[in-house]
């Protein structure tokens, strides 16, 4: 798999992907794309195309996109390990924050539009309904991770503690999937597929498969260990580099 990727028809795809992902346009483009679901849903609601129950539909849509962005963010590292496209790592923070953003939209549409700020009723639901308890748990984790996502917070916490804290993103992902499974009627396919993807990503991090071994048995890719940029700046550890000269560490 890695071989044809690396040189299909004489073009080094890995280098091309890396160049695209590290160009100055990559981040603005991804940022804009990540806003499309929000703009699209608002547009459908505005034009009355969101169906008979626009309130529930927007609660549902924002929740789904929160889960999707979370899974995409979680998939970046496995994808980078599989393909050796180091530039993927630049988007973890942004996409993780988009997962938090859509989760916040999800929660506020539920609170404001569905329950109409009926706080006693909402509190009762959070405590009494396991699926809402689980969903709130996922949201609180994402809030903590979003709040500590800045370079300053990485520095303040120190690389080790920061990494340990941010492993909780998997708990949030599993809780999000569980929330989805629990809220639908019966055993529906879609929530189970999301859960399987999440478990797959988690399993990959535990037992990574690495493709693209050299004939001499050495990996094409340097052992991947991301370290928060701030920890590296303080000289705690050297920045890992891939053979192509790119680094998994965010450089911007």
């Amino acid at each position, binding site marked *: 798999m890695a071989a044809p990727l690396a040189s299909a028809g004489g073009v080094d795809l890995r280098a091309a992907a890396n160049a695209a992902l590290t160009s100055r346009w990559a981040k603005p483009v991804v940022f804009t794309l990540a806003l499309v679901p929000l703009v699209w849903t608002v547009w459908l609601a505005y034009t009355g195309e969101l*169906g*008979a129950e626009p*309130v529930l539909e927007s609660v549902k849509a924002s929740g789904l996109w929160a889960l999707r962005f979370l899974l995409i963010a979680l998939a970046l590292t496995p994808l980078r390990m599989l393909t050796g496209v180091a530039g993927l790592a630049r988007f973890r923070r942004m996409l993780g924050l988009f997962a938090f953003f859509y989760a916040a939209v999800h929660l506020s549409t539920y609170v404001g539009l569905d329950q109409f700020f009926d706080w006693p009723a909402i509190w009762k639901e959070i405590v009494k309904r*396991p699926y809402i308890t689980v969903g709130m748990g996922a949201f609180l984790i994402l809030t903590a991770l979003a709040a500590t996502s800045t370079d300053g917070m990485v520095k303040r916490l120190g690389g080790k503690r920061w990494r340990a804290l941010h492993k909780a993103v998997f708990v949030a992902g599993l809780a999000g999937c569980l929330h989805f499974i629990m809220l639908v009627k*019966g*055993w*529906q396919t879609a929530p189970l597929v999301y859960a399987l993807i999440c478990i797959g990503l988690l399993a990959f991090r535990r037992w990574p498969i690495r493709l693209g071994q050299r004939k001499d048995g050495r990996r094409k890719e340097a052992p991947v260990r991301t370290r928060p940029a701030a920890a590296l700046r303080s000289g705690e550890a050297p920045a890992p580099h891939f053979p192509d000269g790119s680094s998994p560490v965010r450089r911007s």
Partner: protein
Amino acid sequence: QAATTIKPADPKFDPTTPMKSATTYNNFYEFGTGKSDPAENAGTLKTRPWEIAIGGEVGKPMTIGIEDLLKFPMEERVYRLRCVEGWSMVIPWVGFPLAELLKRVEPTGNAKYVAFQTLNDSKQMPGLRSWVLDWPYTEGLRLDEAMHPLTMLAVGMYGEVLPNQNGAPIRLVVPWKYGFKSIKSIVKISLVKDQPATAWNKSQPREYGFYSNVNPDVDHPRWSQATERRVGEFSRRKTLPFNGYGEEVASLYAGMDLKANY
């Protein structure tokens, strides 16, 4: 062609739901679990020819074609519909009381319940390939509930032929129970001695009881049933016991514990 019009829903408090909403926001898992799936996928349902086989504890079992069912004297009735998921609509149905059909087959003294079954053809119903429910979809009523004058078989809505996604060509409407009791696209009716198994009850017995009368005081295990949102409205309404039909039907359950018999 509606001979009489019964309006148990007060138009002042219960304005009729726009037809577009009632025909595009549906639960009909035989065509997918999304709310817009039935409207998008139910085109494959063939409603002619169509027959209902009626048997069991009856004197005169029969198989009746849709042409003959359409000869029953039709009425238009505006009913509230409350979904177990917490939304509701107000729909003008066209149909006739189920009792009229049941009387023709002459239920015997052994008939205590009525079991219903939906068409089970995966060629026409793509949703049957998913294992969300134990197909075919089945539902049931106690005989007195089935014979109640409010219980009807609908063949139309909004003065038009029933759209496929709403359960064409013929469906049950039991306005004081959660919507899933009102089984769609019926092919079989059996009068039976014992309480029949029903699809949602088999799938999640703790959540969906046999009776499933609309009851704001008995929560669904996963959500409150105290309020509902009328489709098209912004704020929530208080849910009424028996969906507001208590005067007509509460006596059916005299002396019963409605929390235990949810």
